[in-house]
């Protein structure tokens, strides 16, 4: 009897969400997979008989498309620098905010969450000003200490870094509240015991807090990586991929192909290459985590 219950219940718990996801995410993904082997474009969308299967043609073309190759390179650049940065920043801020409970800390929780809820147009206008080469605030401040103007958004490598700074600024909020929630889950008795043993602050941080945040850190790392692999909004509103395709990301490339130029087959193929890369990275993380927990 108990066995039976245990067999039925888990499915009842997951069924509503899984059915919805199957219908509105998994099936569409399969459709997109099929499309990636076709030459689907706007004409094909209107009249399906005009669509033909072209096998791996799209995939082959992608790897000889210089812009796509560049977008892969740029995406890795974003991920490798941005992901650790955003995790470290949001964890540090969460730790600082967890320091006290007075109204000051309550207020600052809201303040640090603000970038996540600031309208994207406001973000684009203000950061556009901060980064403006001639009139921008950053270059004005630098000129005070006699540093030459920096072309924040005009030089491919610097532009990538500028976009990373912007994305980190924007991405702190959500990870911060997740860390904050996780910090509450650490029983206070642990800290008290450590203090009685005379452990230093750093020892507490590295031997109690961080290990116990493992589940949250894993979540934040996996989702942040997935999010940054699909880096899109920042280059979309700030640079549109320029200068000289220096900031174009894979997701932006897919958007341009699929929506600006209506090459749906080509865009779908691009997104499955991205999909494959994300899966590899994610599976790797799950494997590493499993090893960790087994130890």
């Amino acid at each position, binding site marked *: 009897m108990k066995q039976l*219950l245990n067999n039925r*219940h888990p*499915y009842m*718990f*997951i069924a*509503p*969400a*899984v059915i*919805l*996801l199957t219908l*509105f*995410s*998994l*099936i*569409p*993904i399969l*459709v*997109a997979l099929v499309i990636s082997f076709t030459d689907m474009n706007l004409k094909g969308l209107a009249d399906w008989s005009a669509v033909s299967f072209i096998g791996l043609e799209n995939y082959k073309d992608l790897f000889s498309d210089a812009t796509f190759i560049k977008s892969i390179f740029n995406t890795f650049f974003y991920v490798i620098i941005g992901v650790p940065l955003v995790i470290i920043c949001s964890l540090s801020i969460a730790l600082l*905010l967890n320091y*006290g409970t007075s109204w*000051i*800390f*309550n207020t*600052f929780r*809201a*303040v*640090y969450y*603000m970038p996540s*809820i*600031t*309208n994207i*147009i*406001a*973000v684009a*206008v*203000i950061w556009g000003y901060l980064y403006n080469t001639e009139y921008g605030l950053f270059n004005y401040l630098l000129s005070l200490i006699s540093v030459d103007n920096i072309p924040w958004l005009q030089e491919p490598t610097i532009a990538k870094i500028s976009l990373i700074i912007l994305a980190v600024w924007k991405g702190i909020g959500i990870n911060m*509240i*997740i860390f*904050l*929630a*996780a910090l*509450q*889950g650490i029983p*206070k008795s642990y*800290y*008290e015991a450590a*203090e009685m043993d005379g452990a230093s602050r750093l020892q507490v941080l590295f031997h109690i807090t961080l290990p116990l945040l493992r589940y949250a850190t894993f*979540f934040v790392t996996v*989702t942040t990586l*997935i999010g940054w692999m*699909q880096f899109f909004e920042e280059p979309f509103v700030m640079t549109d991929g320029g200068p000289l395709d220096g900031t174009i990301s894979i997701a932006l490339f*897919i*958007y341009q192909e*699929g929506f600006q130029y209506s090459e*749906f087959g080509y865009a*779908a193929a691009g*997104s499955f290459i*991205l999909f494959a890369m*994300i899966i590899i990275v*994610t599976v790797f993380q799950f494997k590493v985590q499993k090893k960790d927990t087994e130890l």
Partner: protein
Amino acid sequence: MATATKRSKPEKALVIFLLIAGGVLVSIPFLWMISSSFKPENEVLAIPPTIIPDNPTIENYIKLFTSMNFAVYLRNTIIIVLFSFLGLLFNAMAGYGFAKYHFKGREKIFYLVLATMMIPGQVTMIPVYLILNAMGLTNTMAGIILPGLAVAFSIFLFRQFMATIPDDLLEAARLDGAGEFYIFFRLITPIAKPIFAVQGILTFIAGWNSFLWPLIIANDESLYTLSVGLSLLQGQYANNFALQMAGAAFMVIPIIIIFSFFQKYIVEGFTMSGIK
């Protein structure tokens, strides 16, 4: 906090100083957004930007409320927000299922759930539309709500947090004869309050700002949301920045209210000992 009392004054001052310095940096665009909503159009893009408007005006807000079909958009937005909380419940249940039960295919199904996060949304937009169309749900509220109900991010987050709840707790309750749903609603939900609070904030924001599906699915403006209504104010060439900032500032107020309401629970914490 018991430990806080032992910390020295200068240290606390340093923490507060760091927080303030960072906080100012972080909130400038937000402040600019609010202040620009009170500026005339020609001042918005002035270089250097001003935080305090030179010629404050409430013209933008008047225009905002008179040029939109406000009541209808608000009603639709609220309906979507309410249903997105139903979605939150589904996600929590699924997260719990993946975290606390061992069943056949658990890993595989969970990876499939995660896989839905890994593809850019634009790619699946047209297939989703065609599915909704086949179900006869275009131009209906149901068609707008359904695609956004289940969210892999949220299921994953619930799973991670619920995995930290000790199994003994559940076993004890089962021995006492509690049903599985009773355990979920009466035992798990209170323990997982902080994470519900986090999800509550995220869900509210997503529902409140919902934009793409209302626009794509609706063949009638009576199904538009506030975000769609606001984007109608944008011209092909002229951008009406001040008006848009007024719209953005208006949209952010309920988010701040919800945030301050839920954030209490994020930091309230729970003590394992208190539950038994």
